[in-house]
């Protein structure tokens, strides 16, 4: 695409990334969550692929890094689930503690992010996995259609 589209895509990617992180981290108080925020950021990567061409994006997004991000997302989810095994699998052991353990306020309010226990951490794991998975799928397809291989 032309120079104008490339410049706007570069500037817009920061906003997309920050907004996706906002959706992921507020998954327990607003509509959204891990899957939705991850899909937003992956769509940002899809936008970069169409603006710069898949050959350019391949240089900065390598297959090894994407698989590392995906595995670390799955690992975070499983670790948080196993950390509560003293009581029961998936036990919310952070309730009342100092990390994400606040008491939800009553009355009309926009929602306190410091609540929810392990739910934000699990959302983060799901989000990392979705980002890496979706962007790797589209990048592999685009590379294949333009005749290159994915390393």
């Amino acid at each position, binding site marked *: *695409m*032309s120079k*104008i*589209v490339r410049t*706007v895509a570069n500037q*817009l990617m920061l*906003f997309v990334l920050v907004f996706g992180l906002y959706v992921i981290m507020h998954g327990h108080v607003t509509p959204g969550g891990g899957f939705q925020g991850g899909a937003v950021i992956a769509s940002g990567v899809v936008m970069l692929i169409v603006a710069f061409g898949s050959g350019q994006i391949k240089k900065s997004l390598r297959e090894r890094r994407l698989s590392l991000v995906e595995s670390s997302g799955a690992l975070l989810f499983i670790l948080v689930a196993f950390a509560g095994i003293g009581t029961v699998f998936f036990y919310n052991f952070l309730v009342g503690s100092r990390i994400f353990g606040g008491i939800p306020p009553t009355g*009309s*309010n*926009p929602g306190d992010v410091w609540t929810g226990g392990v739910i934000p951490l699990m959302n983060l794991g799901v989000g990392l996995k979705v980002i890496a998975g979706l962007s790797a799928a589209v990048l592999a397809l685009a590379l294949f259609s333009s005749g290159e291989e994915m390393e």
Partner: protein
Amino acid sequence: MGVLNTISYVFIGIGLFFNLVGVIGLHRFPDMYTRLHAATKCTTFGSIFIITAVIVQSAGIWALEGAYPSQSVMCIHAVLALVALLVTNATGAHAMARAAHRSGEKPAKAVVDDLQEKEND
């Protein structure tokens, strides 16, 4: 609230008029470029006014009720949606026009076409 309601109604009237004009222009104009003129400009301008009416309403409630912070989220996020809409619409219109010209779509009734001359050289 009376003044704010009046302002909102005026803005909504202007916005709906321009949206309707844009959509009707999509059917009245002869070729793709002039349709792009009508569609992009008029709908973007109408959307600016309608979203501004929403912002005025929510900002009024925010200022009136003071400590009730929930309408602030509405106000700020509507402004962000407006900014995103402006940037993406302008750039998307440029990308569509470029793609259409490269695919061989000729501007109907055109007087001069410098880009065609450049491609012929």
